[in-house]
């Protein structure tokens, strides 16, 4: 059951790398991989549209969002103080599968956001992360992720973990015999496509959380349609989680 409510921000916390955590009371309990549409709840009309934001965490009626400041909307949202009114619509979209024994969660940059809750809630026997950041300075919540499952960090400059890309780390792990039943990724599209390449090479099952500009998040505006190599998809309604085959040219 989805809802659209105006509620007061319970807590705001700055995080490294231009990010912040926003906690808002929200029911019902979302599924891992779902997202919400977040906007101002005070009646201003600028910024106008809500922003799609993944579930970073949900616990006992408190929803936590991890948001990176990239433009005007996220900038102004980040300046809201606890007590300010926001509108939250959700939970939206499909979710990550949860039927595998060994899952590897791969996140790049702000794409790590949905993976915390996904790993925390996963019933898989064996869960691990590969988290990629540009550098140690631009990484965040590394401790929090480590508490949920073992993390392999990689970074562009080697300042955090190994100096390689997430898909290279996955390749190396599989080569070393650590073969996941399912790979779950979220991050830049190039990273996800590269991970799919590795998954395909090794015959691994992989799912990916896509991004697209959204107007409504509920399938009403048709604004989020993207033409992927594998299909033209309405990200908010058919996703945001898609099978890796979406990165392959349709025959």
């Amino acid at each position, binding site marked *: 059951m*989805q809802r659209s409510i105006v509620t007061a921000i319970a807590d705001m916390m700055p995080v490294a790398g231009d990010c912040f955590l926003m906690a808002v009371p929200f029911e019902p309990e979302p599924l891992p991989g779902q997202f919400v549409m977040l906007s101002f709840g005070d009646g201003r009309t600028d910024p106008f549209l809500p922003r799609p934001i993944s579930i970073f965490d949900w616990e006992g009626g408190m929803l936590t969002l991890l948001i990176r400041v990239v433009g005007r909307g996220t900038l102004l949202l980040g300046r809201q103080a606890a007590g300010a009114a926001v509108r939250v619509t959700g939970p939206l979209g499909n979710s990550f599968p949860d039927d595998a024994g060994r899952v590897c969660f791969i996140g790049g940059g702000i794409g790590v956001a949905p993976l915390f809750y996904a790993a925390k809630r996963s019933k898989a026997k064996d869960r691990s992360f590969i988290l990629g950041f540009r550098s140690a300075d631009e990484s965040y919540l590394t401790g929090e992720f480590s508490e949920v499952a073992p993390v392999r960090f990689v970074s562009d400059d080697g300042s955090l973990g190994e100096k390689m890309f997430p898909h290279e780390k996955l390749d190396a792990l599989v080569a070393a015999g650590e073969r996941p039943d399912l790979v779950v990724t979220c991050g830049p599209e190039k990273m996800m496509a590269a991970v799919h390449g590795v998954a395909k090479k090794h015959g691994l099952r992989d799912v990916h959380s896509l991004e697209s500009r959204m107007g409504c998040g*509920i399938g*009403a505006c048709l604004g989020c349609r993207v033409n992927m190599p594998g299909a033209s998809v309405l990200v908010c309604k058919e996703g945001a989680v898609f099978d890796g085959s979406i990165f392959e040219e349709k025959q």
Partner: protein
Amino acid sequence: MTDLRVHIGVTTLKNPILTASGTFGYGPEFEPYLNLHALGGFCTKGISLEPRAGNPGVRIVETPSGMLNSIGLENCGSRVFLDEMLPKIAAYDTAIIVNFYAHSEEDFVKLAATLSESDRIDALEMNLSCPNVKQGGSVFGADPRLIESLTAAVRKVTKKTLIVKLSPNVTDITVTARAAEAGGADAVSLINTLIGAAVDRRTRRFTLGNKIGGLSGPAIKPVALRMVWQTARVVKIPVIGIGGIATLGDVIDFLLVGARAVQVGSANFVNPGVAQDLVEGLDRYLAERGETLDALIGSVQE
């Protein structure tokens, strides 16, 4: 509960709050957020004879107090709409208004005739004004003679309530409104989107895949309100007000200047339950004042 009924053509709407084409999906998307039975009616996404994929690339961009869209009239086509979509919404106790468009008079007529066969469709809304279609922009919507003859041709093949939706991208909306009236429209609805553009200055490209798109949202409300007022003064058929409606105050403003009903558009994206809030708000507003809807409509002092 105040009597909120409104008569448009042969259709009686249970209240004057409708949702605007292209902003309410095909209907079911909003089930979690509101009771569709509460609405006066809803206008479907614009339907064409054949399915249409719409525009590639970025389709939506936010602007100050509004948004641009260049969806490109993506839709499932009339066949799929009648066979698959309509049955899913047929049970809703609310008026179903099918928004439709074509690129020639012939196709407009064919489509209107096809849609008229369905008993469950309450009204047709003819979209003359989509600025997103590449073949020349708002061609139908700007030429009063074309509007009159097209309306007359469609009028001949349908007994359903026929609403003509007007483009604001014209010098004088009262001219196009009168043309629709002369052609036999039961009502005019206005405004569709203003044509606009946005640039992505990092890449130095237009943000929208289609370069230009339709501007909607609170930003355009003053223009819409002016056009509705001008039009309501010169036509005898009902005027349906559209443009930036998001609050009860907005609804009242449009009714005051003479709109017989209103459509809520982009605001559905911000709060998918807003249309029902507006119905309830209007009911309360009139009840508190002991005023009838008829007394409110057009009561702005000139």
